[in-house]
């Protein structure tokens, strides 16, 4: 009975948390747009932009948690899906520049003119349409995840081997995207964006809208993930995580379960990347760097693996710490990150969200002992 009650309570918590995300998503842009600068309640644009970035990271963390926390697939390559979504958005933004680039070529982005491209590569076609780019944001990472997952899960590649494969995937993509003849901007990537849907990307109003869109995307991600995990599919999913071969002997084709969440998770990461790029104003191959993917896993571990709220909180806490530390003591950041990983592994196996439960259990145990 107690467990059932707790499960129900958790659902309510997730519901409240989704509302909180949406409330912050509405409040910050309003405080930025309607409250005049100088008022103590005015939210400066830089803060909103920073928070928007964190929300994208939070969505990426949620995507990692969906496969790692609920299905036991430790992906060390989710940064690649994030970056691919970002590149799709970047290609759209590049084509919106049109003839306002340095070279003034109406069709070719500046880096192509510079590299003596005579015509637009085939894979750039269609990216002048927003709708096409948005479809690609979901389709490109999903297809990669589908291809990788199909082979890996069918061949029953699990555990550390799968982690290494995903890590190799993002590393290989990084090397590929660094090459100039990929036709995707080489090591400089894409930047100097002008407009999105006709609105200037630098304008405060656009920033507010992008921030709001990020909050909505995160809320949607939470609702979808919670619904999946709460369904009978979710029960099977966590059972696959805990005892994969047992599920096979019960007659479940485990590959299908893994592939579905892996592809869905990749799509979520892609959306996060697409929202990230216009807010930071640049996308380059370093987004594929293996360290990025590992950091995303760390956010989940810090916040609480296998919970809905944990990855969001973890992503925001760690990135807030990163922003602050890399500003105050830049050389300490990597050590702090390493230390954090050790502390979380040793002391907080269930992350910050689990800490609450640990404290509660301890105080209850104390209360139980007190009358004796």
């Amino acid at each position, binding site marked *: 009975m107690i*467990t059932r009650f707790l499960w129900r309570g958790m659902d309510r918590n997730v519901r409240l948390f989704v509302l909180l995300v949406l409330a912050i998503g509405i409040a910050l842009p309003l405080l930025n747009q309607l409250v005049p600068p100088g008022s103590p309640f005015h939210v400066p644009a830089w803060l909103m932009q920073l928070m928007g970035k964190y929300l994208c990271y939070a969505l990426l963390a949620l995507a990692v948690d969906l496969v790692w926390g609920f299905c036991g697939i430790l992906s060390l390559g989710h940064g690649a899906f994030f970056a691919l979504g970002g590149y799709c958005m970047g290609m759209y933004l590049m084509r919106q520049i049109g003839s306002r680039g340095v070279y003034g070529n109406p069709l070719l982005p500046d880096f192509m003119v510079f590299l003596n491209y005579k015509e637009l590569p085939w894979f750039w076609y269609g990216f002048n349409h927003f709708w096409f780019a948005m479809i690609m944001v979901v389709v490109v990472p999903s297809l990669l995840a589908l291809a990788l997952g199909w082979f890996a899960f069918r061949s029953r590649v699990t555990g550390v081997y799968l982690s290494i494969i995903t890590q190799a995937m993002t590393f290989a993509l990084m090397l590929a995207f660094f090459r100039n003849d990929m036709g995707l901007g080489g090591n400089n990537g894409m930047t100097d964006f002008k407009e999105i849907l006709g609105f200037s990307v630098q304008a405060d109003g656009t920033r507010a809208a992008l921030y709001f869109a990020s909050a909505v995307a995160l809320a949607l991600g939470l609702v979808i993930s919670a619904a999946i995990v709460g*369904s*009978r*599919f979710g029960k099977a999913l966590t059972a696959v995580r805990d005892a994969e071969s047992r599920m096979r002997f019960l007659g479940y*084709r485990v590959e*299908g379960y893994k592939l579905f969440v892996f592809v869905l998770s990749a799509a979520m990461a892609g959306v996060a990347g697409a929202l990230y790029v216009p807010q930071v104003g640049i996308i380059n191959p370093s987004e594929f760097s293996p360290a990025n993917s590992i950091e995303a896993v760390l956010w989940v571990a810090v916040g609480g693996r296998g919970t809905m709220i944990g990855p969001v909180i973890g992503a925001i806490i760690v990135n807030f710490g990163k922003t602050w530390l890399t500003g105050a003591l830049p050389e300490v950041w990597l050590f702090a990150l390493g230390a954090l990983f050790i502390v979380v592994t040793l002391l907080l196996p269930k992350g910050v969200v689990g800490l609450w439960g640990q404290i509660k259990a301890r105080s209850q145990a104390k209360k139980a002992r007190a009358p004796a």
Partner: protein
Amino acid sequence: MSSTRSTSALLYLSGVTVSFDGFKALNNLSLLVEPGEMRAIIGPNGAGKTTMMDVVTGKTRPDTGEVVFDGRADLTKLDEASIATLGIGRKFQKPTVFENHTVRDNLVLALAGLRKWHSLLLAAPTKAENDRLAEILSIIRMEEQQHMLGARLSHGQKQWLEIGMLLAQDPKLLLVDEPVAGMTDVETETTAQVLREINKTHSVVVVEHDMSFVRALGVKVTVLHEGSMLAEGTLDQVSADQRVVEVYLGR
């Protein structure tokens, strides 16, 4: 070699050989289990009992030989999930229940029927399923614990839950690996009763070390030794067999 051959037997193994790095875990093993039968399989350690179960459930592929279920399905060409769906259930030596799921959810996962990922996404519990769950919970006497997590169950409760999961799966053939390991005499006797009860509606193959348990089952016994069948018959017949005595005592 034809992949589908007609046989009246529910489970038909013929000339099955499995070797691991040259060691023959199964050596030209042949075995027949009739529909509705309960069969006990005994043999010393390393006789190939568990490997035989692995072959039947699709975990291990035999090098040579035929494994046919229900007279038509060639089990050597199917994976674990397909074989389970055909109607072969397996109970492991160590009870393996899903520790982070409640007793009820463990049974829900085992319940015959929905297995595809896309059919589970929007699946709602039906009345027939709830009735079946209530029935199983009462058979294994775990109504009180139905919302308890698997991890919190005692060893005995886990064994019972696993039997409940097998009932939920409703297989035609049940493979039971050492069901009474670590049980008291009373529990062993109860388990024998339960298996006899299950055998009224299902065919059962039991692998067991415990001779008093095999005696309590009172069924046909197959003795395995070094991957092959050594003797077959009632427990009294095989106990009288000189080769069986040598294998068990003559080392």
